[in-house]
Every structure is written in C-alpha cells, then in structure tokens.
C-alpha cells in the first residue's frame, strides 16, 4: 500500500488508500482491450525486489493496485471507537520514473454510547519521482508530494475540510551487496519514508454561543499543526535468499514469503498548542509498529500485519490490516501496466 494510508491511519491507528472499486475495474477493462507495447518492472533494484507494503510505501514508481486493504482497530479516542477501514489505491506510471497514485478509504465507526458513522475519507493523491536507482547496491531513492484533498470526504468519519500537502522522500536499500561471508543477512532490506505535512488552514474557529444581550461570542479554536511524518520497514526476503544466497530446498510457499516489521509515526512540529496531560493526537507523537508477513506470487501479493499502537493516543489494543495487491505491469504488460510516456530520466549506473 502507500503512504496515503499512513496519515489518516496513524491519526486513528491505520492505513487507507483508493478509488471506487467498480471505477477501477472499468478503467482496467478498457485498458485491457486496447494498446500494445513493453513494460518494465515493479519495485526492483538489481536483484532486489521490494514488495508493496501495507502501512508505508515502497520506494519505487510502479503500476500497481491495492484492492482492497482492510483494517480493523480501536482509535486513540477516550473511550476508544472501533473502526473498520476498506481502502484501495491505484498507482500509475506516467513515465518510467514518474508516477501518480490515487487512494480512497471508506470508514465505518462504532462509537461507544453514541451514533455510529460511516463514510469516505478525503481523496488522496501522491506524485512520485524515482530519481535514483543503483542496481548493484540495491538502492532506490524517490521524492514527491502527497496531497489530501479537503472537502472530498465525510466529516462524520473525520475527513477534514482543508487540504494537506506533504513533500516526501522514500528510500530503499537491500543488503545483497554485503560480502558473501555475511550469508543470510544479505537477504535483509530496509525502506524508509519521511514527509512534512502542511495543512492549508492554520486553524478552524467555531462559534459555540452568542449572548445577544451583551454581544459576547464564545468560540472554540482548533489549531492544525504541521506534522513530521516518518516510518519504514525492515524485511527479510525469502525469495532473495533462495535465488541469491542459498537455496535451502524449502517448499515453494515458504520461498515466497517476506516477513517484515513496518513502523509509522507522526510528530507535531509547528502550530501546536502546549497542553499538559492530554491525549490529544495533535500534541504528541503517535504511531504504530506493525509486524507481519507478505506472500509474493508472480502477479499479486497478499499481506497481513498486526497493528500495535506505541501509546494510548495512537490506539487501544492490537489491530490488524490485510491487503491484496496486484502487479499491473505483469497482469497488463502491454496496456495499463506500462508507462504512458516510455521515457526515463533516472540517475544511477
């Protein structure tokens, strides 16, 4: 999945992406019927394949579809709400190195003692440029910007009325260039991402009451902080181990697994309010640590992770997330799975 999921997710504990499913299916059907020509890969750097992840984003530009990503968890509110998110994300290469992702999430909230709510989160798009790929070092570096479009979701499930723009960096590094004496350690890889989220509104002021005799007006002010968003993964690639380090003769199902731990965090850094003894998510670092496993098939992958909040403001108890992810460059290599403009301006050998 992508970082799109990350922010709304971390706010209440989890990820979310994408487009209405039927629209995606229609688009894919149309692309499936027309067009021809070659395609490159999903996230490869030399021998290293970085799988798409569930909580953070892989460092590459690719043609892929996460449909669906489903997560269940309890929010950081007191008392905690129970939340179910169903999301999808479509990523499309415009050129070999530049791509766009569109994500959307449908949320169902169960509020203790209150009315339940359901609706769409804001539409999110990410523009990413994979400007450095170093195959021999299994190194990838990308930069881009993620935009959450205000007023495109339902306020009842927490969708904001303002936009949030987040310049981001993504990095991936495989350990395959270590000396062969390091053995199975060469199958490890790490990914990371960092962004700075800037809301388009500094604050929201809501009038709570007006005294018509005195003319006094009471109002609430909610500040919208800037956030530093960061996260990443540590992963052990069984496919890499088998093909590049040592073939242990394990059954194929094990050779396709990538155990990993993802983590994602958000820290307010500007336009904050100093408040003591508060659980407010806007005044402290929140995040989750998500251990899980991804099974990588030839043209799709399936992943599942536990969601462990780092503190009470990040959520209550352990949640879960699962995802079905399709490699469109393999499924539709001559149509939707290839760049619209097949040119490359990538750095590296």
């Amino acid at each position, binding site marked *: 999945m992508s970082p799109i999921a990350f922010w709304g997710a971390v706010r209440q504990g989890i990820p979310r992406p994408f487009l*209405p*499913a*039927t629209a*995606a*299916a229609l688009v*894919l*059907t149309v692309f*499936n019927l027309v067009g021809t020509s*070659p*395609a*490159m*890969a*999903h996230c*490869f750097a*030399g*021998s290293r394949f970085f799988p798409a992840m569930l909580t953070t984003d892989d460092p590459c530009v690719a043609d892929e*579809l996460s*449909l*669906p990503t489903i997560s269940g968890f309890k929010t950081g509110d007191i008392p905690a709400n129970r939340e179910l998110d*169903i999301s*999808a994300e479509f990523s499309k290469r415009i050129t070999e190195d530049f791509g766009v992702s569109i994500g959307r999430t*449908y949320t*169902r909230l169960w509020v203790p003692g209150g009315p339940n709510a359901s609706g769409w989160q804001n539409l999110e798009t990410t523009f990413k440029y994979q400007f450095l790929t170093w*195959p021999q070092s299994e190194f990838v570096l990308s930069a881009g910007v993620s935009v959450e479009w205000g007023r495109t979701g339902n306020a009842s499930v927490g969708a904001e009325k303002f936009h949030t723009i987040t310049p981001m960096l993504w990095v991936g590094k495989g350990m395959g260039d270590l000396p*062969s004496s390091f053995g199975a350690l060469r199958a490890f890889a790490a990914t990371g991402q960092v962004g700075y989220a800037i809301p388009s509104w500094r604050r929201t002021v809501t009038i709570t009451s007006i005294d018509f005799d005195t003319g006094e007006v009471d109002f609430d002010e909610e500040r919208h902080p800037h956030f530093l968003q960061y996260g990443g993964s540590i992963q052990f690639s069984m*496919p890499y181990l*088998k*093909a*590049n*380090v*040592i*073939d242990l*003769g394990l059954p194929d199902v094990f050779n396709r697994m990538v155990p990993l731990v993802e983590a994602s965090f958000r820290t307010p850094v500007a336009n904050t309010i100093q408040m003591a003894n508060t659980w407010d998510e806007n005044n402290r670092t929140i995040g989750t640590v998500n251990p899980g496993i991804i099974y990588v098939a*030839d*043209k*799709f992958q399936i992943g599942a992770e536990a969601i462990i909040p780092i503190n009470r403001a990040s959520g209550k108890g352990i949640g879960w997330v699962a995802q*079905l992810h*399709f*490699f469109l*460059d*393999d*499924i*539709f*290599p*001559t149509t939707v799975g290839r760049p619209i403009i097949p040119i490359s301006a990538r750095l590296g050998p």
Partner: protein
Amino acid sequence: MKIIRKNLLAGAFLLTSLAAADAHAQLESANPRVGSIVSAAPSVLTLNFSEGVEPAFSTVQVTDAAGRRADAGKPRVNGRVVLVPLRPLAPGQYTVRWRVLSVDTHTTEGSFGFEVRP
C-alpha cells in the same frame, strides 16, 4: 455492505486476468544449487526460470574467485531453461551472474555462488 461487494467484484476481475499474463522471470532453481557445495565439477550450469526467456537478450556469466570466466560459449535457451556450458572447473568458489529478458519484455537479474570442493 456495498463497498465490500464492489471490492470483491473488482478483485474477481483482476484474478480472472491473472492467468492470461506472463510475469517477471524469476530464478526458480539452479544446478548446481544456489549457495551449494558440490563434490564433482559440473560441465553445465542449468538455470530454471519461472517464465520463458528471450535468448537474444539474456546473458549468464560464471567467474571463479579471481574473476576469470568459467563459462564456455553462449547459453542455450529452451523456454524457461537456460543451459550454460562450463570449462573444466578447478576446486574453488564460483559466482554466477545472470540477466534475462522474459517473453513479455520484463528484465530481471541476479547472482549467486557455488563451490566445487572434491
């Protein structure tokens, strides 16, 4: 829930599309096996890929610990199988570097070692 039904429908469409497409050519197995120690020097290296590969755009190099070429001649490709003739191998470590183009034009690459130890 409607949203779940829509997701399932779109997912079903994609799943039905999977059978018709080729994927990246991944190394499924090799002989000598990846990372293995063999007592008898092989005369041919065999690479089995998950997809068919294009002979004209696929290369395999075998080198010894000193970096000298140990392969003898061009690889022979038969669908998903690539056969690489080898020179007589002395005891020691060998490195295999391969790069192949699958029939649907995806390029993949990898490397591994094996050791001849009588």
